[in-house]
């Protein structure tokens, strides 16, 4: 993904380490959309996601000297972005329990007949479930990694993922008729 997003990543990183602002901006331009997309999928509002975008790149600019090139550049930036987004969820006192989420969203008797599109269904998930779905199924993090970032257990991550999929299946009208 690095070379896809940033053709001359090595040289840009080398210049960014020297504090070259053009190189820092090149990093921002290359990874702005994937970072924002990840943040927006996790955070509740566009404002929160934009704040995460800003916090992520400020951290990238501060820490680029400590980037050891052991993994991909995108992998490194993505982990910073995911941590910042999850921190923001915690700060905003996310709706962690399903029960509370049902109170907030309101129980709908006609849930089984809903036909939402995937975007709307994803948006409707409780924040933590949505974060787990996105980090696991789309970004490819393992349950152990997600647990580490969230300060929870891998079992918590697994159960959030299963519940989220059960909900998505229902809201998307995908239930298999026995």
């Amino acid at each position, binding site marked *: 993904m690095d070379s896809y997003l940033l053709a001359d990543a090595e040289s840009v990183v080398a210049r960014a380490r020297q*504090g070259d*602002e053009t190189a*820092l*901006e090149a990093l*921002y*331009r290359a990874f*702005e*959309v*994937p970072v*924002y*997309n990840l943040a*927006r*999928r996790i955070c509740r509002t*566009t404002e929160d*996601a*934009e704040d995460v*975008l*800003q916090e992520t*790149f*400020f951290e990238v*600019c*501060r820490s680029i000297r400590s980037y050891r090139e052991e993994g991909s550049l995108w992998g490194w930036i993505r982990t910073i972005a995911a941590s910042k987004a999850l921190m923001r969820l915690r700060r905003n006192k996310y709706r962690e329990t399903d029960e509370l989420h049902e109170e907030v969203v309101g129980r709908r008797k006609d849930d089984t007949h809903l036909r939402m599109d*995937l*975007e709307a269904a*994803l948006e409707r998930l409780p924040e933590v479930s949505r974060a787990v*779905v*996105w980090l696991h*199924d*789309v970004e490819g993090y393992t*349950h152990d990694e997600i647990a580490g970032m969230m300060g929870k257990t891998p079992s918590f991550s*697994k*159960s959030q*993922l*299963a*519940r989220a*999929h*059960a909900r*998505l*299946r229902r809201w*998307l009208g*995908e239930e*298999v008729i*026995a």
Partner: protein
Amino acid sequence: MSHLSMETLVALREPGTEPGEATAREHLEGCPLCRAEFDRLHQRVARLKALPALRPSRERWPAVLGQVRAERRRRRFRAGGLAGLAAAASVALALGVTSLQPKESGPDRARIQQAMVRSQVLESALDRIDPESRVTDGQTLGIAQELEDRIARVDRELEMAELMEQQGRDAALLRLWRERVGLLDALVDVHVTRASNAGL
């Protein structure tokens, strides 16, 4: 065996040897309903991955750059600050005590120290204003960025000047530190004016 739960179906996508996995896989092979559910799960994940990327509606790079520059200023303030203040204090002392003695360091050194102290005072004032944490209108932001750009350029020139040979170095440093003080003064003015106009 009853049908597989969503938790089991989700777990079966992962490589590993969870307890009961072999039995669950065996059921999956022989149960069309669970197979269909499993396929739908895969399709749903594929559709999630294919969702279009969301893009920010607002440009955030200027704000990031502002933070980066403010941090650099603070670092310069901290790094140069303690040493600079100590040096300035010793120069001030030396000037008081040795004004009648031949000046080994030359008049430029004392003026440089004065400019450094003034620069640090202005940095402290900027820190107190904390412009990065405030909402700023476009015009003010433009002026502030122009000043920040010029301060960043002066900082780079200062780094270069510090590496110069002795001859001409102090004159260059003095000119640059004075320029930096002037720019910082203007930057503080911009933020103070904006804050008073906004009633902050």
